[in-house]
C-alpha cells in the first residue's frame, strides 16, 4: 500500500485530474499500473487481452474520476473494483481457456537450467490450476495471495463477508496444492 507522502501526491493528482489536468493522471497510472495489469492477467482466462482490459480500466477511471469517494475506500481498491467488473464482463462475452500463455513475470530469478526446468513444471501446473479454479475462488485467491489485499478490502470489492473470502482463499489454496501432487509423483519416480 502507499506511504502517507504517496497518498498525498495521489490526492493532489486526483484533484488536478478532476480540474481537467489530463497529464496529472499519468501519476495515478504509473502508481497502480502493475497491480491493475497483474489483476487482469490473473483473473482473465485470456491473458493476452489483459493489457487491453488494464488500459480500459484506467480509461474508465479517468471518465468517472468524479465518482471516486475517498471516504468509501482507497483509490487502489476503487480501481481494482473497476478492473474486476471489466474482467467479469469480458469473461461473460467470451470464455476461452487459454492455458498456453500464462502472464510472464517482470524479471526471472537467477537459476540453473535444471532448476528452471523443474520449477517450470510445477509453475506450469500451478498456472493451469489457477485458470481451472472457479471464477469466485480465483478472484479471492488472486486478490488475497498475489495482490496481498486484506480480507476486508476483498470483501468490499466482492460484496461478500470477510469469512467467505477466507474460505474461498483456503479452498483455492488446497486446489492449487493438490494440482502439484501429480508433478511430485512424477519427480519421485525419476532416478
Amino acid at each position, binding site marked *: 500500500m502507499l506511504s502517507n507522502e504517496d497518498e498525498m501526491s495521489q490526492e493532489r493528482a486526483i484533484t488536478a485530474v478532476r480540474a481537467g489536468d489530463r497529464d496529472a493522471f499519468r501519476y495515478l497510472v504509473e502508481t497502480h499500473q502493475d497491480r491493475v495489469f497483474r489483476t487482469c492477467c490473473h483473473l482473465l482466462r485470456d491473458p493476452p487481452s489483459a493489457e487491453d482490459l488494464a488500459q480500459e480500466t484506467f480509461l474508465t477511471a479517468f471518465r468517472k474520476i468524479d465518482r471516486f469517494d475517498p471516504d468509501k475506500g482507497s483509490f487502489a481498491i476503487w480501481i481494482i473494483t473497476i478492473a474486476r467488473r471489466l474482467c467479469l464482463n469480458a469473461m461473460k462475452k467470451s470464455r476461452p481457456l487459454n492455458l498456453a500463455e500464462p502472464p510472464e513475470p517482470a524479471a526471472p530469478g537467477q537459476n540453473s537450467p535444471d532448476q528452471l526446468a523443474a520449477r517450470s513444471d510445477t509453475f506450469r501446473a500451478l498456472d493451469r490450476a489457477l485458470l481451472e479454479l472457479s471464477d469466485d475462488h480465483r478472484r479471492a485467491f488472486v486478490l488475497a495471495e498475489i495482490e496481498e489485499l486484506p480480507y476486508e478490502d476483498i470483501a468490499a470489492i466482492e460484496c461478500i463477508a470477510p469469512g467467505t473470502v477466507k474460505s474461498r482463499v483456503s479452498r483455492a489454496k488446497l486446489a492449487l496444492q493438490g494440482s502439484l501432487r501429480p508433478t511430485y509423483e512424477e*519427480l519421485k519416480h525419476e532416478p
Partner: protein
Amino acid sequence: MNPNKPSTDNDLDAWLDERRHVAAPDGFSDRVLERIASDQTTREKSLWRSPAIWAKAAILTLALAGGLGRYTLLLVCLVTG
C-alpha cells in the same frame, strides 16, 4: 538423488512470489494516456454530430425568433395604435 525434487509445498510460495512480480509492459502509461486523448477527441467530435445537440439548437433558435417576433408585433401595435 535428484536435487530438483520438491520436498514441501514451498513451490507454491515460490510460484506466488513469481506471480507477484508480473508487471505492466513498458510504455503502458503512454498508451493509456494516448487512449484517453483519443477518447476525448472522439467524444468531442461525436457531441457535435449528435442529433440531440442540433435539435436543442433548433428549438432554442425557434424560441428566440418567436420571442423576438412577438416583441416586434407588440411594438408595431403600439406605434400604429
